[in-house]
């Protein structure tokens, strides 16, 4: 790579059967992945799931055990990192401590013998609003400023693909939100393909066009953030992305457009299109429903629940007021043996009767539920460290 590609020329990334083994440990199982040109792609997963290894194989910092990496039609598997048209923003930034900010940003240009380094670096530093800091050393800058230098140092080379390895992990919450928007803006502006590795599900959903959820060296599910959230296909995705209530149910009738389920004597409906393909009468499956899709009605008002909604009895165990909403945990026969059902209620018109101990009805639109294969760990994805809870 000695040419400067014009901006707006991100290329697609094709991973074909790529895998990584360290001795007997498989960090990444054979994986096929296509990242469309110019898109913002997130690899999401807990630590040790193989997401960073995948990123490093694209960068050339890790040699794949099998498979190939193709960037814009060119097989780069055998190329060393310094010959690949990609740049990386490292976790903790990896700024050169012995060089000032100007020389850090100029590093890539100088190695490629690009002319008019001074002008390019000046423009790039202005873009990230660090023009004043050009002669400072990295340790004299704040975390957010260092992060911007790291992005500038990578972007100045106009890579075809920008790789981001947990670039916001070291920042505090407020700054992280700000940088998320900033990165998204830059990506839209320069049109470069971004591949972003993160363990923060909210970050992945805010920024990315497409999210691949990784678990134990495999991609569990890939899709647009809203699709992943509304229609998770595994318990891991259901629990890792936000919170899910998973109810073990038996299939009573799988003949029609609507599958009829039974859990603890209660009949529940689920559109056939939202069931796992193989669901047959008599099978077990897991019915999932997001906490914010459930409406809580006091048992005295049971007759006000509209017909056609799934409805379950329960008793409020705890209520946590968090300002914008109230988070309830409700004990219910359908959730026997679990910690109870989570319900998030927006604080618009609060019913004063909804206190711990109150008998309630939980009801939701059947179309908001999703069916999952019952042959998986129901708590998969709940026991991983997310770094921070959902807000």
């Amino acid at each position, binding site marked *: *790579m000695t040419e400067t590609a014009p901006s707006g020329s991100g290329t697609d990334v094709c991973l074909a059967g790529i895998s990584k083994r360290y001795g007997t440990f498989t960090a990444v199982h054979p994986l096929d992945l296509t990242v469309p040109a110019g898109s913002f792609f997130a690899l999401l997963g807990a630590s040790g799931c193989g997401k960073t290894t995948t990123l490093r194989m694209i*960068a*050339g*910092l890790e040699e794949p055990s099998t498979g190939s990496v193709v960037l814009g039609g060119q097989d780069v598997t055998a190329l*060393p*990192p*310094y*010959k690949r048209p*990609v*740049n*990386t923003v*490292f*976790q*903790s930034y*990896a*700024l*050169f*401590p*012995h060089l*000032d900010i100007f020389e850090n940003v100029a*590093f*890539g240009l100088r*190695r*490629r013998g690009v002319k008019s380094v001074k002008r390019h670096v000046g423009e790039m530093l202005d873009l990230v609003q660090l023009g004043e800091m050009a*002669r*400072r*050393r990295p340790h*004299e800058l704040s975390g957010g400023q260092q992060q911007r230098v790291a992005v500038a*140092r*990578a972007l100045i*080379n106009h890579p075809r693909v920008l790789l981001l390895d947990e670039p916001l992990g070291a920042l505090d919450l407020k700054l992280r939100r700000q940088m998320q928007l900033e990165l998204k803006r830059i990506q839209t502006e320069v049109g470069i393909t971004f591949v972003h590795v993160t363990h923060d599900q909210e970050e992945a959903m805010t920024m990315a066009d497409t999210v691949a959820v990784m678990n134990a060296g495999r991609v569990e599910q890939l899709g647009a953030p809203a699709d992943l959230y509304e229609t998770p296909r595994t318990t891991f995705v259901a629990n890792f992305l936000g919170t899910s209530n998973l109810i073990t149910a038996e299939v009573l009738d799988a003949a029609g457009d609507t599958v009829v389920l039974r859990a603890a004597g209660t009949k529940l409906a689920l559109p056939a299109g939202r069931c796992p393909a193989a669901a047959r009468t008599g099978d077990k499956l897991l019915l999932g429903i997001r906490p914010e899709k459930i409406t809580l009605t006091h048992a005295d008002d049971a007759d006000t629940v509209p017909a056609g909604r799934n409805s379950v009895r329960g008793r409020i165990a705890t209520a946590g007021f968090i300002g914008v909403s109230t988070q309830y945990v409700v004990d219910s026969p359908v959730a026997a043996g679990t910690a109870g059902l989570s319900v998030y209620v927006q604080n618009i018109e609060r019913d004063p009767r909804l206190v711990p101990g109150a008998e309630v009805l939980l009801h939701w639109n059947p179309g908001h539920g999703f069916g999952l294969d019952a042959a998986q760990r129901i708590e998969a994805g709940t026991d991983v460290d997310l770094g921070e809870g959902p807000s």
Partner: protein
Amino acid sequence: MAAAPGRSPRPLRWLRRNLVVLAGLATLAYLLLPNVVVTVFSFNKPNGRFNYKWQRFSTDAWTHPCDVDGLCGSLSLSLWIALWATLGATVLGTAAAFALARYRFRARSTVSSLVFLPMAMPEVVMAASLATLFLNTGVSFGFWTILVAHITFCLSFVVTAVKARVTSMDPRLEQAAQDLYATPLQTFLRVTLPIAAPGIAAGALLSFALSFDDFVITNFNAGSTVTFPMFVWGAAQRGTPVQINVIGTAMFVIAVLCVLAGQLAGSRRKRSRRS
């Protein structure tokens, strides 16, 4: 303290408040007193051969430092040996430190502990074994045997200093360089080496000082060659020329000036970046 009047007598309170400063000054005095004596006596004009008693002020020794037979020859020999030993030990030691810190190879831990042996071993033992080695291989004693001996014991200090630096270096810095189109050689020259430089410099300075100063090992392996420490030792048997004090004082002053210059340059660089 001021908020609790009458708690303890005033001198005690003063002492407690300034104890750290006093301890610092006392330590400094303890360290500097010998140097002061050496400096003062470099301006002495002794009556006999021994420069132990103050007679009267004179700058004779300062104006004629090479008047003593063999002094300046031994001094320049010591400087040359220190220079070459530093160079050899720094190059070899840096390479060894990188190998030990970066690569996993057979006998790595053995090499790692063997390298430290010269530091731990009594000097006289190493001196004797080196002399035995040179005798048995039939090498004639002189400049080269001294140089080889000095490189041997300086090596472990360089390895220690550089290895500490290399081990604590973030491996992602080199990966970042490669990611930014630097070939392995450019990565080494532009990133690895500059970051390891303080460790290398520390090892080199230490080597220079140790080599210049060494007596025991040199004495065993010098043959008829005389280095500066050996000259001082020899002279002390017959009398101590004032010129030895002159050389000692000059070296002390040069070292202090070097440190001051370094600190001045450092603080100026910081100030210019702030403005």
